[in-house]
């Protein structure tokens, strides 16, 4: 698995994402925001941070970068794409994922370890051979603009299509997201975005390894497509 991790001016978590891809057994390289060539890359991570300072609106400038144009084509051809935090915002701004991320209900940046529930349509088999297709993942979230929003009819459709990739565990929604949604996928299933940071949950020493599961799920989605 060869991962490409986009790097914008103002990205913060790109090196962490790179390390997480490698820890998951893959190869990874940074893709500078001015690059258009994704040749040889099997999966893309749009990482967290504050691309271009997130001035104007989170992700609003990054979506116009040459690298994002390439990611749009890559996604259209079925390539797996994972957007984390700012990357999720960029993917929504680019129209690759439905909905938008608004200012947290608290109006404050919040950093907290919390539990995510994997959506029922995840294509990975349940871990440990159990019957349940859902699993709880301990992953940190850290953002000021992470309140997932979409009109009710869109949310209904996302639920009906199995596009809710991750929800915050009951009582742990840190930002007021609609229906506790922490992450969604596109209709084809190959583009996934979430606000919490799986790349910061890949090492028992720093808290949890549950984030590896997110990278595996995205990689698997690409193979299936």
């Amino acid at each position, binding site marked *: 698995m060869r991962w490409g991790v986009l790097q914008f*001016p*103002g*990205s*913060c*978590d790109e*090196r*962490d994402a790179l*390390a997480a891809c490698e820890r998951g057994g893959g190869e990874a390289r940074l893709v500078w925001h001015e690059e258009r060539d994704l040749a040889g890359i099997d999966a893309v991570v749009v990482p*967290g*941070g*504050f691309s*271009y*300072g*997130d*001035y104007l609106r989170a992700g609003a400038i990054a979506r116009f970068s040459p690298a994002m144009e390439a990611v749009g084509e890559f996604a259209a051809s079925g390539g797996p794409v994972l957007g984390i935090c700012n990357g999720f915002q960029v993917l929504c701004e680019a129209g690759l994922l439905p909905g938008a991320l608004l200012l947290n209900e608290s109006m*404050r*940046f*919040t*950093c*907290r370890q919390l539990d995510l529930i994997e959506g029922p349509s995840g294509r990975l088999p349940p871990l440990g051979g159990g019957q349940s297709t859902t699993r709880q993942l301990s992953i*940190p979230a*850290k953002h*000021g603009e992470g309140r997932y929003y979409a009109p009710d009819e869109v949310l209904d459709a996302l639920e009906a299509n199995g596009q809710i990739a991750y929800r915050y565990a009951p009582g742990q929604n840190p930002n007021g997201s609609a229906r506790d949604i922490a992450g969604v996928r596109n209709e084809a299933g190959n583009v996934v975005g979430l606000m919490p*940071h799986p*790349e*910061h949950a*890949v*090492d028992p*020493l*720093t*808290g949890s390894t549950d984030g590896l599961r997110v990278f595996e799920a995205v990689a698997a989605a690409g193979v299936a497509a």
Partner: protein
Amino acid sequence: MTVEVAKHRELGLTDSEFELIVEKLGREPNDVELAMFSLLWSEHCAYKHSRKLLRRLPTEGERVVMGPGENAGAVDIGNGHAIAFKVESHNHPSAVEPFQGAATGVGGILRDVFAIGARPIAILDSLRFGELDSVRSRHLLDGAVRGIGHYGNSIGVPNVGGEIYFEAPYEHNCLVNAMCLGIAKQADMVRAAAAGVGNVVVLMGASTGRDGIGGASVLASAELGEGDDAKRPTVQIGDPFEESKVLECCLELLEKGLLVSLQDLGAAGLTSSAGEMASAGGVGIDLDVARVPLREADMEPFEIMVSESQERMLAVVEPDKVAAVLAVCEKWQTGSAEIGVVTDSGQIRILRDGDLVGEMPVEALVDGCPLYDLEPAEPQGWMYGNRATLASDASSEETLLALLASPSIASKRWAFEQYDSVVGSRTVRRPEAADAAVLEIPEASNAIAVSIDGNGRRVACDPYNGTIEAVLECAQNLACVGAEPLGLTNCLNFGNPEKPAPAWQLDQAVSGLAEACEQLGVPVVGGNVSLYNEGPEGPIYPTPVVGMVGELPDPAKACGSAFLREGEAIALLGPFEPNLAGAELTKLRGELDAGLPRPDIAAVATACATIRDAVREGKLSSAHDISDGGLACALAESAIGYGIGCRVDLQPLRERGCSPEEALFGEGPGGFLLSGDRETLAALGATLIGETGGTTIELAAGDRSFTVGVGTAESAWLSLGTQLDSHA
């Protein structure tokens, strides 16, 4: 005649300092020169009231890579790498405009660290405000916390720890001290000294505007008072996105070996960075202000020279490498301009389009400021106020809950959840998980621990002993995670040094700091002094803030502060002699008075070594330093972590001569609260006092015995956010 005299006074220079400048120049300075002298001869830049005292501090040690005088200090962490670190104040800007003041405080300390070639890996902050029931304090707290979060989060450096105290003397003059740590390959590190006649001076980063004009002299080197709103234009505006680009750009330039030297532009802007680079290198510099990229076209030369616009760096570059340097700046979309040249004249010459507008000997400008002796006098008794908020006959349970809810002791989760503590993938012990933050250093196959401490109230009670306690608390925090201290940085926040009482506090505190560092064998590798911290009602509590960095071989072994398992033994270790002098309880009762007992530094050092070894060998389940609110609060904190109660008998402390109240709530250095296997703890020489388990905290202390639910204690301890809301 009187108009001219007023000019230098307006800029903060005394008449005799002005006369000395005239003497050194052989003529009267013009406006450009006067503006530059007034900044470099300010307290903030020249340390004129503190430099002599600072000579007392030990600065040498085997692991010291860079000491005081550079942009940041650095210690050897092994495998060719160094940890750079420094703490700095941004008090007065934050008191005037807390969001931007605190944000640019973080921006400034980050630049200090990457200026020596280190990638910033952690931020800590030490904050002081007036009492929480004051509107001003809540406004300053909210703004400062948002500002710190805004800057640090946006630039992707984790905020891993800190402290916040609320005390009335900080009402008008809050303290915002920020500490940054970075990691560098020692081979890539760079000093700030300019060198090489004919080399080019390149200004990188943001353009220069009218923000922060006179910040160092007008704002940082004078007392706060009425009408400070008018000083708001002296506060700088931060842009973390620009800094993020400048940071990456500078690190790439250093990695490629393209720079001779590098310096950040902080207080006093171009004046100070060019002056200090020239002074350190023993050379001259010519600068042409017409080549400085400006935000406003009509800026005067003196404005360009003193502007404190943020996110700027000054580099010295060999002529044949200039093109490569400019290309890297272009890649990172950050500004760059060739604004000057290194000369052998020994002069700082300011040109505008080639016309000379100012010329001063570097020696006079940078090192010519007279250094003053203090005229200290010990104040009679307690010179600050007292306000009772807790009845002296409150029950033990009421007292514990009042202490846990006291904003200075209560959990700071409300604040630190607004900071990214995990970016960078190094944070092994996050805020509140352990007594010190722990960061992985894969580059050297080990880890570092860092703690920042300084209880101003206790220093106010006794500046000498209180400052020793601040150093000991840091050392104890490091011991709890198994770390051995490598070096220390400090920020000395004091009142007006020209007044006898603050002068005495400063003098005593520096002596205490020197004594503690000497005895613990911890070198001071850098620091900052912030004086004139006074409001209309007098000086702040004298507040030396100490940041200590240590090394541990295996971060997985770092102990947390919370009880881990039910049914384990609880024990005390160390020369802990709790008493109520300067204690939080004494404050709540409005009974503060001067004086603290003399700490036994050597005995605390021995206890630290015992704890450190035990943690490294995995012998303990938890280790927690006994600090604010005494043993009862330490026990509650350890119980709250994982919701595991305890049953404890304080008889052993009573046998040391403590009253039940002193045993419960008394404070003092040297105490460790441990949990683990009974026999292992006993073999360490610890005093067994109880065991973990259940859902209550049961404390037997003679006639003050009581039981309180862990949940009840937790609610009080987590009440900071609701206390803020209830006042809003």
